[in-house]
């Protein structure tokens, strides 16, 4: 189910909402460098007004409490006390404010203590996304050079668009959303084809071979044959991580056509 940080518009990544406005440059820059789009607000009311303008949905939040603890906590409450709470939410406090976090565990996912290393914010946000087990954009599934956009049914390999038939797409989608996990032909038939298939269990082999042909020689190995069991996408070690081993690699990067430079 879509949560509010899920991006709907082709390839566009939802921004992180930040407080205060502006976020200190030495914190904002590493976040932007990591590919996050930032929208800063000076108060809860400002955030509410952004939301009323209709277009904002938040990938997550970075709230700095060092200058105005009361407003920061009000904003956290505002972002969390709703049907679909904004997450992940990272709170920054000064050393002397740490004791004020007591009984407020529901308002944030993690906190860090200022002063902090410039890269720490980006690293913590990255880790929170990883821990929540979903990429910032659930519509995009990536494995190394392979990208699937589940919203538009489009797939690409190393920047090249793949022209897939419906069943080829469904099979690739199923394998790519369960990377590293081995499936028998029977399971794939049941899960991907449902009761509608005809062609028998060998149909799976046929489609795997067709997919490999389309991936091209260079990437054909993405779909691995597990002898006398079945097939899996990628390495066994990928099991349990729902996306690439290098989550930062382009995953949050805005599209090339987005005015990232202008925002800096």
């Amino acid at each position, binding site marked *: 189910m879509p949560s509010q940080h899920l991006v709907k518009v082709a390839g566009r990544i939802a921004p992180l909402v930040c407080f205060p406005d502006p976020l200190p440059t030495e914190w904002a820059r590493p976040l932007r460098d990591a590919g996050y789009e930032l929208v800063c607000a000076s108060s809860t009311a400002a955030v509410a007004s952004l939301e009323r303008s209709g277009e904002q949905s938040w990938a997550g939040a970075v709230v700095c409490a060092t200058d105005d603890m009361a407003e920061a906590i009000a904003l956290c409450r505002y972002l969390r006390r709703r049907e679909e709470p904004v997450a992940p939410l990272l709170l920054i406090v000064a050393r002397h404010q740490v004791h004020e976090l007591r009984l407020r565990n529901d308002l944030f996912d993690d906190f860090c203590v200022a002063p902090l290393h410039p890269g720490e914010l980006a690293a913590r946000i990255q880790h929170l996304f990883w821990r929540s087990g979903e990429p910032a954009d659930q519509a995009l599934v990536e494995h190394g050079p392979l990208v699937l956009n589940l919203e*538009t049914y489009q797939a690409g390999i190393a920047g090249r668009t793949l022209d897939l038939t419906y069943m080829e797409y469904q099979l690739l989608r199923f394998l790519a959303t369960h990377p590293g996990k081995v499936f028998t032909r029977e399971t794939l038939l049941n899960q991907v084809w449902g009761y509608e298939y005809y062609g028998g269990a*060998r149909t799976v082999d046929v489609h795997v071979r*067709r997919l490999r042909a389309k991936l091209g020689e260079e990437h054909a190995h993405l779909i691995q044959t597990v002898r006398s069991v079945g097939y899996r996408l990628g390495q066994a070690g990928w099991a349990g991580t729902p996306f690439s081993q290098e989550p930062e690699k382009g995953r949050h990067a805005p599209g090339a056509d987005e005015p990232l430079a202008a925002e800096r």
Partner: protein
Amino acid sequence: MQDRRDYVLRTVEERGIRFVQLWFTDVLGTPKTFNITPAELENALDEGMTFDGSAIDGFSRVQESDVLARPDANTFQLIPWHGHAEPVARVFCDVFNLDQTPFEGCPRHALRRTLERASRAGYTFFASPEVEYFYFARTGTDPTRPPEPIDTGSYFDLTGADPSSDLRRRTVLTLEEMGIPVEHAQHEDAPGQQEIDLRYTDALTMADTVMTARLVVKELARQDGVHASFMPKPLAGVQGSGMHTHLSLWEGERNAFSDPDDPYGLSAVAKHFIAGLLHHAREITAITNQWVNSYKRLVLGYEAPIHVSWARNNRSALVRVPVVKRGKSDSTRVEYRAPDSACNPYLAFAVVLAAGLRGIEERYELPPEADANLYDLSPEELVAKSIGSLPVSLNDAVDEMERSKLLLDTLGDHVFEWFLRNKRAEWSAYRAEVTPFELKRYLPVL
């Protein structure tokens, strides 16, 4: 079905597709198409597109001529050679009557019906054809002169000077890009002759694939100023172009042809299937070899089958059982060597399967293996071994077909009758010709 439909519509939108080609096939295996714009696609997917069937060979009927092309959304595929700037996609269609019943003249239905018969008996049917064809110089299309091959290569030749190897390589890559896996491709025996072996799929997909592959081969050749031809025997004195097809039946994940304990590695099902092929071979030849020219290929001396027999390592046999590698009993299959590359693959796969299934149903007994080279046997020896011959001409084949209840049942009245009429007419037209053979042989002396 809704998902498939949405997938197709969304892809058309995302990829900026300007035209969608609706593909279907007439009774003789000629590809047919009409283009629609994306705006019409939704309607086409939901209700089908009406077109005038009388414009197409074998689709005409007396009472009404309008029929419906209903796209099979599973087969929606971009056509790579139209480029990425203004992409074009194709989708195969099933043809229906306006009352939504399957149209009797549609070859895809004939194959579907036969596959459903196999499926009711618990089998799925896989086919893997070896498609042979020639590359000729464009100037060689003057029909009064023999065509000129574009190379002088031979079987499995590897030469830098072979102008067809680059074209063949690009053709294979384009096929792979369209999701058509190629097992291997090589230069064949005759000058200019090529072979592309397609990896097995279920027979319906394979019939679609053969249609696509023939178009890809022709289109890429055309772009190079070369004429690609699937004519069964374009040059006298060298090999013709066959479409040897490897066949197997599966029960779920089990190869129904395999029995590792049998001396031949063949199950009882496989033996009955082969017996069915042999028993009905003469009846189905009009379909697997449907042109006057097809019978110029089925002659002595060019590795084409002429006798109704089966064997393991004997390429003169009609049905060959390739020896499988140890531990690879899953690849057990039979190779039917009569079909040529100019057949209608839907009808050819349908009649071949029907013959095999009849063998299984009636528990036909498999005759002994033909271990000798059949080409070396005298007519008396062939009679002694009760080895029959394939039809020697289209006329001969059509006579056999006309008597066949199996073919009537498999093809349905409409296709059966239209095909006989069409082939009788082709034979009459051929008979009325005076050929260069006759002029050369008779004019000087008679």
